[in-house]
């Protein structure tokens, strides 16, 4: 009996919990990057992998993050005025500056992955988040939490 109840609860759980939709391009890319980072951090709790296997996973995540940031920076020029205009119009120079910092950080993360310097990854991700939060602060945008 409890097995059937469990299946029912699982299906209910599946049905209502996805967070999608109606995000603008900026939010979409931000959530994408945040999602990769959360999966990366939760991998630390994976008791089924050895430390070297986890290092392999971290390197793979590093490439994914680097790629996602590059796309984010590239597509930022396509962000509509509706999305960012109010913030960027008066601070375009500042926005571009932060965008360049972001692109450089993506390259640094990729370099770390190429050299397999896993121990340096956490610090780079910390610096990456600081660029995002710093840019939001510069432009007067609220620093939203993940959700």
């Amino acid at each position, binding site marked *: 009996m409890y097995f059937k109840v469990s299946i029912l609860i699982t299906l209910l759980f599946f049905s209502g919990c996805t*967070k999608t939709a109606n995000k603008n391009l900026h939010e979409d890319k931000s959530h994408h990057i945040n999602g990769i980072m959360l999966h990366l951090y939760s991998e*630390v709790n994976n008791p089924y992998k050895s430390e070297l296997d986890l290092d392999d996973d971290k390197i793979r995540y590093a490439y994914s993050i680097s790629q996602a940031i590059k796309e984010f920076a590239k597509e930022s020029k396509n962000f509509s005025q509706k999305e960012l205009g109010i913030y960027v119009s008066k601070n375009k120079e500042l926005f571009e500056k932060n965008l360049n910092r972001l692109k450089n950080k993506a390259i640094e993360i990729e370099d770390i992955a190429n050299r397999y310097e896993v121990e340096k990854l956490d610090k780079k991700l910390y610096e990456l988040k600081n660029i995002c939060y710093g840019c939001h602060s510069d432009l007067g945008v609220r620093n939203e939490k993940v959700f």
Partner: protein
Amino acid sequence: MKKYFSLIFLLFCININASDEAEIKELKEQVKKILSRLEYLENRVAKKEIKIDDSKKVVAIEEPKQNLELTTKETVLSVGGKIELDFNYASLASPLNAKSIAVADAQNSPHQTFNAANSRIWVKTRTPSSYGLIRTLVESDFSGVQGTETNTNSSGLRLRHAYINVGEWSVGQTNSIFNTSTPLELLYTPLNDVFVRQPLIKYSSKNDLFDYDISLEQPETTLLTQDAKIITPKDDIIPDILARARYYPSWGEVAMAIMGRYINQDSYGDFTNKSSAFGWGVNLSAKIKVGYYDDIRFHTTYGVGLGRYVAYNAYPAGYVDASGEIDLQPTYAYSLGYRHWWSKELRSTMALTYAGTKNDEEFLQSIIDKTNINRSVYASHINLLWTPVLNSLIGVEYVKAKRVVESGDEGDMDSAMLRFRYDF
């Protein structure tokens, strides 16, 4: 609100300084437009189309703590581990696994334990060479020989991993490549776990989207006898041969592992005959992202002669009759789970797991006491995991499990765990 006061003040100043009536009219029009624009923007803020932070305060981000490292000119040596304490409360005193949940008339009183033996320590190194990176790992925990709970709760050091990885080759003791690649994020070990750690020689090819592994691993035959015991004849002559492919698309991860193994007994004990058989197995596992953060994970495993690879040796690879003839049996395991992120710090997994084997009916008739011969086990898990600071975990999990044995008896077990963990 501050913006309104500023505009009123501006209007006041404008009124004082304006001498020309036409100019005043024009300025009033402009103010009207500004107010209209302001009202539009405030409406958008109210509708959450845009967000403005008045305080402009930067959210504090926690700086990551790094592992202890020693670096020479070329080698990086890192030391790390975890401290873990589990508080466990179960409806039965028996261990929660596929071969130990008490059935029938067994003891059924609740039991509570604390356990820190899962704490670990590891040392790893990384050195560049002309053959690629040379990486080594030694890892131990304290789940070896267990002491008693009466005085000092001693727990013996146990080897988990000891291996070296040079370029594409790995040699030593580590996880089998047959293991489920996308395990559920649970506090309790799943009863149907497909998990083995053993000495091996492995070749790996890593690419952007695809990884391949081939390995030769420690063989170990496990067979059920007419005494209802699982024996290990120690007559293995060929290593288990395994291959695995993993695919990493943007929507998740898929892995498939296959295995072939030679099961052998060479006149073991009182058996008069030698016998052998070929066993095989397939393990398919996947993680599919749902939205930005959540994921569904599942695995399905099937094989003939899988034995110890499923549910921690709850099922034998096959049986051996009185004359020593081996007959292998099918074993299967399935799991399905959903992980949901409530926030950056909170997440939950809900999962269903099942494992079972098809014991030979005819052989079972020759066994008198079947209460120790496992048929199936299934469980449901739900947990809540909290990461208040980086590298930490506080989690609670509830599991309800059922074990069925070949005598027809069943055992039900409820168990709850509170875990504190910190990775250093």
